[in-house]
């Protein structure tokens, strides 16, 4: 990867990280009433990952798990109403008070948005891999075979 890792840039990114995290969280929660939402939040989080990776601070890992978790969450939110006899994707609305944001009237939309965020972050992470691909990756087929034979 191209790594413009001058100390200044690295420090800047280190400082910016918490700030961006806050922005991301704000977007995630604000989405229901103001512009924002899970997707935008995910992209902001993703941007942090990209920057930190580019600056060689931290390499992302577990993108697959993050995405799988996101999809599972979204599916569960969609299917959950069935359990209490409602229709698919029926909304449950609850009001909660969140510090700094005030009263947030939200419900199942929130876990839904969290799932979305997780997926988007996962996507951005995988993009780093995809664009930095070298073609020398491990052959999954072969490794799988070994596992199977061993099992």
């Amino acid at each position: 990867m191209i790594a413009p890792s001058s100390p200044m840039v690295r420090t800047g990114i280190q400082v910016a990280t918490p700030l961006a995290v806050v922005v991301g969280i704000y977007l995630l929660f604000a989405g229901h009433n103001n512009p924002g939402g899970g997707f935008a939040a995910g992209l902001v989080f993703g941007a942090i990952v990209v920057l930190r990776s580019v600056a060689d601070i931290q390499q992302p890992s577990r993108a697959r798990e993050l995405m799988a978790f996101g999809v599972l969450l979204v599916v569960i939110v969609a299917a959950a109403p069935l359990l209490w006899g409602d229709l698919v994707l029926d909304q449950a609305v609850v009001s909660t008070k969140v510090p700094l944001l005030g009263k947030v009237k939200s419900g199942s939309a929130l876990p839904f948005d969290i799932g979305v965020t997780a997926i988007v972050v996962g996507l951005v992470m995988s993009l780093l891999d995809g664009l930095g691909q070298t073609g020398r990756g491990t052959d999954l087929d072969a490794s799988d075979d070994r596992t199977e034979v061993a099992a």
Partner: protein
Amino acid sequence: MSTLIALTILAPLAAASLGVLLRNRVVWRDIVTVIGLFASAASSFIMLFTVADQGSYRLHVGGWSPELGIELVADRFATLVLPVALSIILVVEVFAIGQRRTAWGANPELTGPLLGVLTSGVSLAFLTGDLFTLFVAFELILVSSYVLLTHQGQREQVRSGMSYVVMNLLASTLFLFGLAFVYAAAGTVNMGLLAERIPELSDGVRLGLGAWFFVVFGTKAAVFPLFSWLPDSYPTAPTTITAVFAGLLTKVGIYAMIRFHTITEMDALGPIMLVLAGITMVIGAFGALAQSDVKRILSFHVISQIGYMLMGLGLFSTAGTTGAILFLVHHMPVKTVLFLVGGLIENHEGTSSLDRSGGLASRKPLIAALFAVPALSLAGLPPFSGFVAKFAVISAGIQADAVAIVAVALIAGALTLLSMTKIWLGVFWGSDADQSDILRSQAGIVSTSVANRRAMFGATGLAVAGTLTISLFAGALFDLSEKAAFELRGDTPAVIDGAEDASAINNGGQP
């Protein structure tokens, strides 16, 4: 019913995500995937019987009215086609599990989850009553197919993957434009409302919309002149993947076309559709004749057969639509089986090239038998399902006095037969070429364990049995197709069993 619909769409997704999480626990991963796909297929079968019994069902997702929200429609058409499609994916997954250790297999870590996404997309595409959700469903199907096609990252796959992705991406973009046009003209993307509002539009706009969506769906369905992406991309994928693609992807396009163009009464497009149907049939058959590789021949057949379905639709009569639906139901499993047999051939011959194989019938009579049934069916020979389907379409053509298209359809049938004999003579008869021994050993048959072979043959045999079942119950399927056609076209059937069902539509959810 609501639960069934949710299960059909969501279960494979859940299985897919669990499959990704469990990617290193091979056995569990496969079990989870199969369970997810099975749940989906099973609930679709229950839906079929429920709807056949109680009439169509409309689900308003989240309880929103169709004006505002998304409507899922489990009508006769959807519930007839869905079980067939989902069973195919299930069978292919079993085959893929069996095939994984040979050189021809796809990456098992990905195929399971991706087939899950594909299943979910197919379910959504068939069940949705909302044009935009259809777009999303198409994207689900396509994106999983993009990945399935290219995930091995080999040169040939990347090359064909680029063609495939670019063409389909353009089609998706056109779909988005079409949605904009529809929304501008009718103020909604709900298909039920569109069925009322589109016929009220001025002729120009109405036909424009019809033609535009014909291009959109026609690209997915591989209709002339929009089919070019198909034969270049399908054969490069691992056989299991191609089997799913060939069985399903184009059919989703034709499904959408049958639904959209009948409910919006695009009868005026009929003649154009018939002309294109004729060209598609013949070009597809010619294309198949020109090839010398089993998978490529079969890929071109997909195109040719789409022509028949388009012909049924283009007649814009109940008989024609019935024929198209029946053809759809017949074609999906038959095509898939043929590709699965292609996979078996590859496994045993080390190649799917006609020039380099031969004499398989005496070495492996079982493969020959497994091939013969769907091949004869595809060529439209009795007593297989292909005959009934082709017969339904052609007799609808005769009823409508569409002599020219009937003649073309018959000629295309002869060409199909010729190309099937080409495969038969090239692969199953004749002498085995000297090279094939080397190729066979390269293919790694040696490493295929008995269990794997059983899974592959079992899956293929099951699918062949499925096509035979379709042939056997062709009568019942025809009746179901006819009811579906009546329901789609909004005709009042003169005398039809359970006609009162067609009008009885249960509303799910509060409006």
